[in-house]
């Protein structure tokens, strides 16, 4: 199987499984809801820190984040699906993180 097929199958997996994931019992529904609210509010709060770079950018990003958060509301089931225990997905994120970090450090240390 070539790489293209692997990546495409992975994309399909993510999209397909996120839809049928539904919280069931009372306690798990409230947990997922709490996690959802925590996640969104933390991200928006964190986005406020962009004010150190530029005020206009911060306002724009926060508004955009609120809009996006409302649009893609049940984000937690997808996120939970993503952080599963399968080696393939963990490896995917590890290699992705390695790439991001090396680029980020090279760019960030020269520009921040």
């Amino acid at each position, binding site marked *: 199987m070539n790489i293209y097929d*692997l990546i495409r199958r992975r994309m399909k997996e993510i999209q397909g499984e996120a839809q049928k994931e539904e919280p069931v019992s009372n306690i798990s529904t409230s947990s997922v809801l709490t996690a959802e609210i925590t996640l969104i509010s933390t991200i928006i709060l964190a986005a406020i820190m962009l004010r150190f770079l530029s005020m206009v950018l911060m306002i724009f990003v926060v508004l955009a984040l609120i809009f996006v958060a409302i649009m893609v509301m049940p984000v937690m089931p997808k996120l939970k699906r993503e952080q599963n225990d399968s080696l393939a997905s963990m490896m995917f994120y590890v290699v992705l993180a390695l790439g991001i970090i090396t680029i980020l450090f090279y760019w960030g240390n020269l520009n921040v």
Partner: protein
Amino acid sequence: MIMDTQSASLLTASSLIIIGIFGTVFLDNLIKKVIALGFVGDGANLFLIAMGYKAGGIVYIFMPGMSRDWFAQNASYPLPFALVLTSIVIGASTMAVMLGIIIVLYKRHGSISASKLLGDGNNGK
């Protein structure tokens, strides 16, 4: 000569690492995965020892008849050599443990396919 020894070693090391990571990510057979990890480790070790290279340098053993100043100027750097030995030993023991685990998994499940054994669902089987 197109390339000096150090650049050639660094190039080899980086290609070993890239091949290794590629293999670890995309190969399904656990033994092959471990071999690919061996590539990554070897690449790192080669990288480390290439740091001690000195163009036209000599082995850092102080022989009778050498002058101290001449030795200091011409010997290659000994520290990476000492470090890489330790690192190789660590790599070997890690690999031994990994292969041991794979033997146990094979005896239990009769398979060494990563997607079957190390997926999400069959974590507690």
